[in-house]
């Protein structure tokens, strides 16, 4: 695997749209060629090299390419968008749409990301060491196909609208989450190790939510069923199982209605 290192040298006046920072766009290119890739500030087209110091070179394919991005990237959008393979390490905070529509490969952000990270994600791995913004692993506006595969791990907290319209894949949040989790989800698994506020599983058709901490307000459409002993992301424990959303439509399998499941850890 070859490594390309980008170090931000000029901050954009507004925001930098850099959907070319992907192993797919870099593959087969030398540093000079990578420097020539287009990026945008408002309506103006620029070259990547105007904002980044670029060293190293890419591998022949995306899978053989690793990108390390350094510096304050809190005004850089779209890092890793639509990537299919390879690896990106972001050494700092990044702005919106990190790993949006990604299909494969791995992104590690050693900082925070803003909203819409992992939008419509299909595969691969997105690891956020800091906090994530709103709409993590959610669907793009209007789409009924949200995150369908891959795994997102957040060490810190996540914002509102986590996993909206999720159909598959897994999201693990180490800290707390804001309102609306797995709204409209039809599959997938969300693990919240900290506390949740309200609107968990609203309009949820299918899928699983696990909460280790408190839930401020439970949806009226979730009904307590039983206590179960299970292991979740390496933690064994007793959980209260709720099913819902009782107001929503559900499929039937072998005559049984399939509900979404919400597990809350029971703490002594």
């Amino acid at each position, binding site marked *: 695997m070859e490594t390309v290192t980008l170090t931000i040298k000029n901050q954009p006046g507004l925001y930098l749209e850099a959907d070319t920072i992907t192993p797919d766009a870099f593959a087969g290119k030398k540093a000079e060629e990578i420097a020539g890739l287009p990026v945008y500030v408002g309506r103006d087209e620029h070259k990547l090299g105007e904002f980044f110091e670029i060293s190293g070179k890419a591998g022949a394919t995306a899978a053989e390419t690793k990108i390390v991005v350094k510096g304050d990237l809190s005004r850089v959008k779209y890092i890793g968008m639509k990537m299919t393979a390879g690896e990106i390490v972001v050494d700092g905070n990044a702005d919106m749409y990190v790993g949006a529509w990604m299909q494969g490969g791995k992104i590690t952000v050693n900082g925070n990301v803003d909203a819409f990270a992992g939008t419509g994600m299909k595969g691969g791995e997105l690891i956020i060491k800091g906090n994530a913004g709103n709409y993590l692993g959610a669907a793009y*506006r*209007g789409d009924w196909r949200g995150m369908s595969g891959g795994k997102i791990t957040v060490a810190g907290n996540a914002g509102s609208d986590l996993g909206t319209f999720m159909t598959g894949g897994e999201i693990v949040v180490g800290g707390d989450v804001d309102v609306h989790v797995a709204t409209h989800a039809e599959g997938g698994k969300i693990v919240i190790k900290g506390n949740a506020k309200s609107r968990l599983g609203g309009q949820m058709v299918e899928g699983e939510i696990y909460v280790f901490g408190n839930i401020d307000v439970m949806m009226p459409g979730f009904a307590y069923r039983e206590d179960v002993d299970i292991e979740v992301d390496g933690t064994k424990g007793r959980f209260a199982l709720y099913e819902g959303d009782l107001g929503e439509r559900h499929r039937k399998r072998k005559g049984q209605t399939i509900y979404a499941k919400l597990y809350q850890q029971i703490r002594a």
Partner: protein
Amino acid sequence: MAEYLIKNGFVFDPVLGIKGDAADIAIKDGKIVETTALSSPKVIDATGKTVMAGGVDVHSHVAGPKVNVGRNFRPEDKLFGYKARSGIERMQGGFSVPTTIRTGYNYARMGYTTVMEAAMPPLYARHTHEEMRDTPILDQGAYPVFGNNWFVLEYLKNHEIENTAAYIAWLLKATKGYAVKVVNPGGTEAWAWGLNCENVHDPVPYFDITPAQIIKGLIEANEYLGLPHSMHMHANNLGNPGNYTTTLDSFKLSEGIKPNSKFGRDQVMHHTHVQFHSYGGDSWANVESKAKEIMAYVNSHDNLTIDMGQVTLDETTTMTADGPFEHHLTELNHLKWANVDVELETGSGVVPYVYSPGIKVCAIQWAIGLELALLANDPMRVFMTTDHPNAGPFIRYPRIMKWLMSQEARDQQFDAFKHKDKVIDATNLAGIDRELSLYEIAQMTRAGPAKALGLAHMYGGLAPGLEADVAIYDFNPNEPCAPDAIETAFGNAEHLFKAGVQVIRDHEIASNGNKRTLWVNAKVNENPQVMRDVKEKFLRYYTVTFNNYEVTGHYLPNPYVIEVDATQ
């Protein structure tokens, strides 16, 4: 205006009867002229290329309230599909429901120059006209819907044809409409109570009338007026297994009625998107093609024309004034559902739909559409449409051409189906080896629809005196080609003239044209009763005033009025 001489192309023109012979086409002052009439034309060498009149679409949902619902409620339909502005081209977006700008350009790119908006809710006529105004290049007209209109229901309950006709004439003028459209007659009014009319004898709640009475009455009123187009029909029971009997029952209501129109059409009913109305079986498990039965009827009845409503196997957006059908659809696929019931007039619904080659029913629908065209004895009466965007986006017309012109292309598609064998069993298509010629395609996409619209004096051919709407395709019909070459060539006209203006040059948009809006001004005897009824309904039941209803002025910056005199 510039003169043009399109030299030596292979011309396909049903109006002149030219079947691919090399010929020259001359353009002057916006019209086709004899080549001798030119003095110093710009010459376009069309050697080795195909030349046809501009395409005419008899049925497409491209402008108006439900189309815009389809745009605005589907941001995902535009994701990553945009085209940036450049030169004279404005920015474009949208796949199944493109922006008006893209609609105009994409039709032009296929060599189409006239497109009729298939359903205009009268109360929203202004909106429809605003969108058509902002659709470049194309000549357009819109069909106001009548089949669930309270005036029509009340007049036809007592078979008052003259009053119905007077009301139609008034509404065409008020809305600047082109033809009489009927969608699920009575069923959409029933839907205002959450109900439906599932066959032609199913009475409309409260109004004490059946769909059959509405259909027959509107045909008669249409012929009473002698409008350019016939009554334009979308029957009850669309999209349901076993519905072909309802379709045949609807067809039969036209029997014995002769056209009364000086505009040269032969039909008294145009039935649209017949693919959706040709299903046998009694459930989605055993649904099968009844295209043979449908076409046996069509082929033997000259006073009927139809269009296909071809499924293109895309993710698309369904939209229709058939409110109950859209509700039925959203119950099936659970996708987002928009509905608008329109006071005293009509309703509509919009639901996204994914026609997947992996789903048996979708593949059967695909086959049925093609069967309709391939079983047609007279291509002048069977037109190519996708009921855009219902069965698929109009940009797939070149792909449909490919399927119609090449058995190999059809076989390739069969092979791509997950349930190929079941699809073959439920349909006739695998046993049909007919391959349509470009001449027949020109009948189905140009001369036929122009004639059925009563616009054969303007569009659909290359005879001198017609509008200079001419498409030149980079396609040599005399050389063997892979099926995909058909799709490529006819999706990307090399040159296109609209009313003598070159709107595409070397495959690029060269002009935004001078789009016109066609409407029909039918003069009838003064009818005080109808005017009294209209004013009373506005006073008591409408939420806009009578004086704020009529569409006037700047909504049609370039109108083209077709005058009809039905005074007696």
